[in-house]
């Protein structure tokens, strides 16, 4: 167990280090002074002093600053990038989390259902629907939904995460937590408003992941239900429901986790697209602004934050998967 933890920690640290090196290199690849790109400060003397440093010592300095929480300043707004990221990143993670939860909530039951009734009408329609879902361009779907639900019917708002007139102080960055902590507003009204703001973006982001989950769950259910131990259970006279919940469910679920780990990247990418359509105040939207305004320190820091978040989440899911899946133990003992 400790061995596993150590190995994953090692992996995490090394990957993050590579990302930090890459972000450090960006400062030299971007136009302008590397010093300015790293700190967001325009100061010719400091830039000259920085130029005299060797690249390695400049890197150690940078690494120290990153750990100290000093990510530099934005060239456009002059504000601390760490602060700006602390505001925007949670909004992105929140949307990703809800989208993932929604995809699982809908995708798992439908996948099992289709897998238990293979090659029947239900199965084919689910498969067909998931193929359609999988091929939707996210930005197009988002605009279509805005057109229908916001502009045509006026049921759902189309921008932001909360009505701007509701002044919810930013404490955790997660909107429901912040609403719960706020004391100057009608909380249930604000929570409902937040749900309405979440509905369309969550749906748009979740749809591709949902399709992937449906197909994966269907396939693994199908496989598991043909395994000898299921046939043995059937011959013992257990009911179908008993067989599925006692023997099939957990085994069918196992292959899903690695897929989830891969879906994290897909989801975060989609969130960043959807954010700019729904004016969601997340890091994707923020990064897009930074790119448009050629705010190099912000692009560097934003890339670092997003890549870091993706790596941490992916490795955590991998680790979790590794811990709950004992079948990998034998194989790895041999290779380790």
């Amino acid at each position, binding site marked *: 167990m400790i061995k596993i933890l150590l190995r994953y920690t090692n992996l995490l640290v090394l990957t993050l280090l590579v990302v930090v090196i890459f972000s450090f290199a960006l400062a030299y690849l971007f136009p302008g002074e590397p010093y300015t790109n790293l700190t967001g400060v325009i100061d010719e003397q400091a830039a000259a002093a920085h130029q005299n440093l060797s690249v390695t010592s400049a890197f150690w300095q940078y690494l120290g600053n990153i750990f100290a929480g000093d990510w530099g300043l934005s060239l*456009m*707004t002059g*504000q601390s990038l760490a602060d700006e990221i602390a*505001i925007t990143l949670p909004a992105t993670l929140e949307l990703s989390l809800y989208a993932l939860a929604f995809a699982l909530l809908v995708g798992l039951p439908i996948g099992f259902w289709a897998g238990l009734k293979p090659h029947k009408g239900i199965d084919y329609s689910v498969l067909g629907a998931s193929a359609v879902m999988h091929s939707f361009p996210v930005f197009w779907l988002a605009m279509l939904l*805005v057109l229908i639900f*916001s*502009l045509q019917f*006026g*049921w759902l*708002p*189309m*921008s*932001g995460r909360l*009505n*701007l*007139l*509701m*002044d919810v102080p930013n404490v955790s960055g997660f909107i*429901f*937590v912040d609403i*719960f902590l706020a004391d100057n507003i009608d*909380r*249930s*009204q604000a*929570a*409902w*408003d937040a*749900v*309405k703001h979440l509905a369309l973006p969550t749906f748009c982001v979740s749809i591709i992941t949902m399709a992937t989950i449906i197909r994966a769950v269907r396939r693994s259910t199908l496989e598991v239900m043909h395994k000898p131990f299921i046939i043995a259970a059937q011959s013992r006279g257990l009911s179908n429901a008993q067989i599925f919940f006692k023997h099939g469910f957990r085994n069918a679920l196992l292959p899903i986790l690695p897929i989830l780990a891969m879906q994290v990247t897909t989801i975060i990418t989609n969130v960043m697209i959807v954010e700019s359509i729904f*004016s969601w*105040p997340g890091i994707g*939207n*923020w990064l897009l*602004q930074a790119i*448009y*305004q*050629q705010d190099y320190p912000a692009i560097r820091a934003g890339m670092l934050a997003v890549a870091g978040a993706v790596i941490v989440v992916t490795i955590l899911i991998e680790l979790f998967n590794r811990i709950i899946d004992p079948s990998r133990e034998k194989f790895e003992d041999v290779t380790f």
Partner: protein
Amino acid sequence: MINGLRFFAFVVVSATISACSPVSNSDIKVNGLVFCSESNPSSFNPQLDTSGTTADASAHQIYDRLLDFDTESGNIVPGLADSWLVSGDGLVYTFQLKRRVAFHTTPYFTPTRTFNADDVLFSINRWRQVEHPYHKVSGGFYPYFQSLDLADNIVAVKRINGYRVEIHLAQPDSSFLANLATDFAVVLSAEYGQQLIEQGTPSAIDNRPIGTGPYKFVEYRPNHFIRFERHDDYWRGKVNQAQLVFDITPRSALRLAKLITGECDISVFPAQSELDVIRDNRDLELLEKPGLNVGFWAFNTQKPPFDNPDVRRALAMAIDKNTLLDTVYFDSARRATSLLPPSSWAHQSNADDINYNPVQARRLLQASGIEPGFEMTLWAMPVQRAYNPNAMKMARLMQSYLKDVGVEATIVSYDWTTFRNNLQQGLHDSVLIGWSADNVDPDNFYRPLLTCSAIPTGTNRAMWCNPAYDELIEQALLVNDTERRKQIYAQANRMLYEQMPLMPIAHAFRFQAQRNNVNNLTINTYGGVRLGGVVKQYD
């Protein structure tokens, strides 16, 4: 854990309860006004910037001026000054100030006194005196005042008593009162200035502003929103909305969409192509007014070959202005022949106008040594303005016109702040931009746009300096007879026609869209939007 459970239960319950009845957006009865603006303000002090975005966000929301313009007639009306007196020789202006005008009380500042003469002195001296402790704060550029050379003409600003101020001028200036009524002549709090100096954070005066206006500043998040709160002791009376939020939405289509869904109450600069959509929607209302503005194409006259008037005239001849009016302004603009719009009293209806003549243009270019295939940059501003609702589209059209005469134009655009910074450094060959007047006086067009002293302040986009022209503009201010002044401006028009430092394109109407339940809002022809008196009705 209990907390977590409670929280979870609360989310689920509130979601299910509300889900039973369909709720529309308007049901959120939060008392406030959402104003969809187009860009980020550069600060919250209009003294520092001539951009309309900064003026919208601060001039009439946070601050007051000594004088104001009547939004309808353009007449000068009392603001923080109750009354004023001009001496016979036109050199001494005496202002009697209002009493019991409260400054904002915010978490970062609690005023101990009301507005008085010290605040007027503090505000004027900040841009007037280089030795003033705040002059250098936030850059030390006061583009509007510097482009008018106003500081040089003021000899002294004297405090007669707590509520009486005298301003002494070196020369008579027939536009002086009008300048004090512009968005830029805001009154800051001297006491707040003092407090910030003691705290060692003087630049906060422009980012966490204190004024006497109808709304006080709460929070600003760039690219996202600006939040204001009602100023409870506002001297003009009760402000209707508890809150005012600027929703910063650069894309015009998105602003329209938010207006339709009710996420915005007011939206600025609707695109010309969206006007009919707004007119047809029964929840929306379109305000429209002839604007005091001019959109133009300025050449960087300090860069060869644009320092040659013949080249500038040839390029201007290559463009068919009427097509630009049709396709970019959709006929909601008048063709511009000089700087002044027809609504100005000094407008010259028979001014010379350069005509579309590509053959002549090519000949002139050749004669000036410009070979076919000559490359130049055409800068197009990234934001919509009344005077140019779609500079990008206009640039593309002009690109093809220029190609016809053998000139290869590259279109350049940055975000608004970078764009203006680079312009000020003179990095452009030519630029599509314009000017909205800050007061009704014709001097407000001729001086900031083209005089020598307007080059460093960044309002003279042509970087054009011509002493003879400056002389004319000075002369015009010294006479009080309007007919004589008109003649002088006609002379200036003739000179501009010959020199063509910029090609005037259009005087556009101004549009603003709002939801039907917003009342008491008019388009302010003379500067930034005024939201203090707006009433929003809830049904």
